[in-house]
């Protein structure tokens, strides 16, 4: 339990780390849209090359990226296989009801590369941006929503608090599990139903303490006169620097590039 790393921030000093988190989030969103607009191998390869460049620039060990890929490798394989067997057109290989077509192969490769690219780039975002920076940036990006009476600051504060308490609650779970095991609770054997039942002695104290912590935190915040986002200044102001503008231009160029490849080589399928 103690070895779980959440929030996966990997501190290092790289170009990507120094970018404004807002720029990173917006670029990621643009890229997610973009990767699904790649219609031929040229544009797909171009988009993938961009991801690899970002991965290399981030100075985060490639091992870490592979680790994050490991989690979804099963999903990638299953979706690729499904696409492989459900293509339309002339079968080039057939065995019973299973048939493989060129369109199937094409789809399988595209789905696989797209998912991998998505995961890599989102990992690059979480690896290079601390959770507080992320929520900060989200708060700023969602600010226009206040027009619709959405409490953006409150949402961002909730996210920050939730992230802050993940390690605390993990530690607490660990402690309570040990305490119940010391009283002979058996969590490692038995049927699924028995195992779920065995969780009750862990979950109840965990919820109780989560509520207690929430209550204490609320009081502590009120004691310091916290009353939401109105008129609140911030210690860390986000500023766009030269490299941020540069990276926005790069993102735009990549988009243009993908569109160009789509148009230039339509026959490449």
């Amino acid at each position, binding site marked *: 339990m103690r070895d779980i790393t959440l929030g996966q921030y990997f501190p290092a000093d790289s170009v990507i780390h120094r970018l404004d988190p807002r720029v990173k989030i917006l670029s990621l969103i643009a890229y997610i849209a973009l990767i699904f607009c790649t219609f031929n191998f040229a544009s797909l390869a171009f988009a993938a090359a961009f991801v690899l460049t970002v991965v290399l620039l981030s100075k985060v060990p490639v091992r870490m990226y592979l680790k994050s890929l490991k989690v979804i490798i099963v999903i990638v394989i299953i979706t690729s296989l499904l696409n492989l067997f459900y293509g339309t057109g002339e079968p080039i290989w057939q065995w019973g009801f299973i048939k493989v077509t060129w369109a199937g192969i094409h789809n399988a490769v595209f789905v696989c590369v797209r998912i991998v690219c998505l995961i890599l780039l989102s990992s690059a975002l979480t690896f290079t941006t601390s959770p507080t920076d992320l929520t900060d940036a989200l708060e700023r990006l969602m600010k226009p929503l206040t027009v619709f009476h959405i409490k953006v600051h409150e949402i961002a504060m909730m996210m920050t608090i939730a992230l802050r308490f993940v390690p605390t609650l993990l530690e607490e779970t660990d402690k309570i599990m040990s305490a119940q*095991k*010391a009283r002979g609770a058996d969590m490692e054997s038995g049927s699924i139903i028995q195992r779920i039942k065995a969780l009750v002695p862990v979950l109840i*104290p965990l919820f109780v303490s989560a509520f207690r912590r929430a209550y204490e935190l609320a009081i502590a915040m009120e004691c310091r006169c916290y009353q939401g986002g109105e008129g609140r200044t911030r210690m860390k102001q986000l500023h766009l620097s030269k490299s941020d503008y540069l990276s926005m231009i790069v993102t735009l160029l990549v988009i243009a590039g993908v569109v160009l490849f789509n148009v230039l080589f339509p026959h490449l399928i």
Partner: protein
Amino acid sequence: MSILSVKNLSCVYSKGTPFEHTAVDNISFDVERGDFIGIIGHTGSGKSTLVQMLNGLLKPSSGTIALDGINIWDKPKEIRKIRFKVGLVFQYPEYQLFEETVEKDIAFGPTNMGLSEKEIHERVLSAAKFVDLNSEFLEKSPFDLSGGEKRRAAIAGVIAMDPDILILDEPCAGLDPLGRDILLSQIYRYHQQRGNTVLLVSHSMEDVASVCDKVMVMNHSHLELYDTTHNVFSEGDRLNSIGLRIPQITSVIDSLIAAGIPLKKGTLTVEQAVEDITEYLKREGRL
């Protein structure tokens, strides 16, 4: 034969990563049946890791722990049996309460042991008696109790398993002085009446001095000292050098001895000190 025999015990966390950390380093000791041992040391000196290894919650990286002469990891599948024999009360145990009534919560351990209803009921009653929780409390929800009562209920939950060795990790942490005294005297009474072995992890030298027969001093993952309480607290300088202090009364008496008044070195309780000083004054004819 010693009830507990520990040989070359070590525990390393996150082995093979940059976060590698040796919490317990090559410790050996024996515990005799019926001993009441205090374990003292700084935060992070390895006390909690040590006691969690003693009841099989943590697996040692190397070394052996023998309970009644049998290595507790001989049959890893039966480690739960060891946990019934070596009862461990965690720090702030009140946060582990979860049942509807105090009675059911105390019964959790004995139920896991697979005892009969009658036996469970008897054990719950006798365990509750040790911590002075009467039948009125047993019907209540554990969440309606006060902090001190919750703590006592949680300790009763471990006592009810009737372990051969009872280990308490900082049982008095966060209690007011009166609550401390009451809880300590209850633990002391449990030790006297059951004659079971008790290990008490504590930060408070006074607590350890008042109830324990022997003291184990942990320092930087090592076992620094292990001797009778009297002998350990006679080594004031050595304890000071590792940043621990001796009980206040012991250091007061030591200063008096240094000033030329013939008193006994290693006095552990205020009562004892009062007795010695009165006797000295009478001898001198000043009283």
